[in-house]
């Protein structure tokens, strides 16, 4: 937290809104810190990690892909692995599910080393949703979900009434009742993912491991899946460990995020620590575009060069114009934007120049001059709509100059 504050103080354009946000964040973090400390004490006393990866090296055929993983996960926590393709997220998950043997280190699950569990014992505690393609023969979706009850059925695998009810409930939870009687091989990839999630849910696990569970889902079902996971974690105290490609979703759902990159855990911590500064940009080696850690959105790289268009806007009216100019590869200057304006955040990434002003201040002479210069030099001016209030009266002058220049069009 200290370093975060220093960073804020170091910035010369501190604004109250940002401070507010920071303060709120710091309160939250302080709470988290306290919780963390408490749990640390617990950990020292009776070792309450639900899943503990201790000096783990994982990989294939004795060759480590990722070394030295240390991680303690509490019951009911949602931990998400993010990182570029091929970083080894699946390798870590496969090692936790015992599909891969560990190269070194130990996994302690519920106070016992993972290898001391029989497969049978583990099956009633750990459920998985894998990326493996499933081609069951002549099985309906309902049949596939019902295999989740396998650890609880007798020798012939017959389902009791109670089992049936759990299967039904799980199908309802993922909104898959209506495809229950369809052949599993005949449904879409997204539907398959939902059916496999239902399967994992009715397995009644203490921990659920999911490898890219959202990859084929549409936006509605992505949100649905994540809210199901959140409910499971917070109400039933089920631990969730998963890998996600959607970093924006990871930011919103996870209690903790693990960045996997190179041959190690590049960084780990609560989302507010990960989505700060250029961590994400470095994690994914993004040199071709940018990531806004506050909004969790990605942008293609901005157009560099001498601006030929001036965009006048406020409160979000400029964003569609910026995007359009970027598609047309025309360098532009955006102004005059208060630094707490949504337009400002996007303009910083897309515009070749931004004329900015501190929030709630009257427009300074410096900004005025820059804007009037831009009116002169640009070949086109786009008026996307500017809200004028007591603070930014001077924008009227700019607009007037723009319209008089004859280069101005309305967006």
């Amino acid at each position, binding site marked *: 937290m200290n370093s975060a504050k220093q960073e804020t103080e170091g910035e010369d354009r501190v604004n109250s809104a940002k401070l507010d946000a920071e303060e709120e964040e710091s309160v939250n973090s302080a709470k988290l810190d306290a919780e963390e400390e408490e749990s640390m004490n617990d950990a020292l006393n009776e070792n309450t990690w639900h899943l503990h990866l201790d000096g783990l090296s994982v990989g294939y055929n004795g060759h480590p892909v990722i070394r030295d993983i240390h991680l303690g996960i509490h019951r009911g926590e949602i931990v998400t692995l993010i990182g570029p393709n091929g970083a080894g997220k699946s390798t870590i998950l496969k090692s936790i*599910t015992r599909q891969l043997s560990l190269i070194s280190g130990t996994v302690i699950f519920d106070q016992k080393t993972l290898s001391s569990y029989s497969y*049978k014992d583990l099956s009633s505690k750990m459920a*998985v949703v894998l990326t493996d393609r*499933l081609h069951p023969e*002549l099985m309906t979706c309902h049949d596939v979900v019902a*295999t989740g009850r396998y650890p609880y059925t007798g020798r012939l695998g017959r389902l009791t009434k109670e089992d049936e009810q759990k299967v039904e409930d799980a199908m309802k939870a993922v909104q898959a009742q209506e495809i229950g009687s369809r052949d599993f091989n005949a449904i879409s990839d997204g539907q398959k993912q939902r059916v496999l999630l239902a399967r994992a849910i009715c397995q009644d696990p203490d921990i659920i491991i999911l490898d890219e569970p959202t990859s084929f889902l549409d936006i509605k079902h992505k949100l649905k899946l994540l809210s199901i996971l959140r409910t499971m974690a917070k109400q039933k105290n089920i631990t969730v460990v998963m890998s996600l490609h959607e970093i924006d979703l990871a930011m919103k759902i996870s209690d903790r995020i693990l960045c996997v990159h190179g041959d190690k855990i590049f960084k780990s911590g609560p989302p507010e620590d990960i989505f700060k500064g250029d961590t994400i940009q470095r994690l994914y080696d993004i040199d071709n575009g940018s990531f806004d850690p506050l909004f969790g959105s990605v942008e293609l790289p901005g157009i560099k060069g001498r601006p030929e268009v001036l965009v006048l806007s406020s409160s979000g009216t400029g964003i569609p114009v910026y995007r359009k100019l970027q598609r047309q590869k025309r360098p532009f200057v955006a102004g005059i934007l208060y630094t707490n304006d949504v337009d400002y955040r996007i303009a910083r990434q897309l515009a070749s120049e931004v004329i900015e002003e501190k929030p709630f201040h009257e427009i300074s002479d410096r900004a005025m001059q820059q804007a009037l210069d831009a009116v002169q030099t640009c070949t086109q001016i786009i008026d996307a709509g500017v809200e004028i209030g007591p603070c930014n009266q001077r924008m009227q002058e700019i607009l007037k100059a723009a319209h008089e220049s004859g280069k101005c069009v309305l967006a």
Partner: protein
Amino acid sequence: MPEQETRENNTIQQTVKNTETSYHAEILKRRMRYTLVFVILAVAFLLVTVININTGNVDISVGRILRAVFLRKGTTDDMNIIWKIRLPRILMAAILGGALSLSGFLLQTFFENPIAGPFVLGISSGAKMIVAVVMILVVARVGAISSWAMILAAFAGSLLSTGFILLVSRTVRNMSALLVAGIMIGYICTAVTNLLVTFAADSDIANLHNWSQGSFSGMTWDNVYVGGGIIAVAVVLVFLMAKPIGAFQLGEAYAQSMGVNVKQFRIALILLSSILSATVTAFAGPISFVGIAVPFLIKRALHTASPVVVIPAAFLGGAVFCMACDLIARVAFAPTELEISTVTAIFGAPVVIFMLIWRQKGKRA
């Protein structure tokens, strides 16, 4: 607003009820389907058995057959023909046919591929190779070979091929690649056998030729007891493994997460399937297509691959199929008897072709 809510709740409850009833209807439909298939198989079994006993060079009326079978009364000729020739042969065809079909089902589960079967995987060829080696070595020195030695040799050969497949499977994880490896093993064994046969004296390999044609003729009650005993034990073990087999149908990774010790299970599965097919090959020689065609037809008929139902049905189906094929082999060009594989191939191969087309269609839909 509250009215609307209740209405919405009602519709939700309605749909819940609908899905529940439709699900129960589904279960009922399934059970009826299973019952129907088993009834048809049982009727076919009885029918083929009776026709089989009733058919042959010597005509014996049904009344005399029933008397001979159930009351053990009749002329010495009737008794001999029925008890010493026809009954053991029919029983053996049933038992071995069932074993072949079941072995095919297990191998298809193991390889996650519907084309896998004991004949395709070189298990039969391995048996033939060792039988050839033993015959040529033993007959040349001792002058004769007992049928027991042949059976043991076939058994050893089958297990040799299986062992090799298991060995390869430790490094090759891809099931299609493993299947190809199995097919190649079959070719190697056949090549070695041909090499031996080329340089052997005709008299040494006369028996080999007879045996390798595959036939249910000349079965004795001893054969029935021994073969039946081994197969009975294997079938019971397979049935006890029905649940993990079902889990394995979802793939190795999911099976493991469901509590199956995959490594042990794989070994158990392939050992059981090769014991089944080795027993068949040892007694009746290599028989093709039963292991692929019958499980496929049974699964389509039952409309499920669930092992609890498929295991008994596949066994029964294999029994009926082999008895029928044996009947045709005996009758079609009587008094000349056909190779059993000739008949099974004529009826089995089209099923495989149909299966490939069907799968393609399934993919498109």
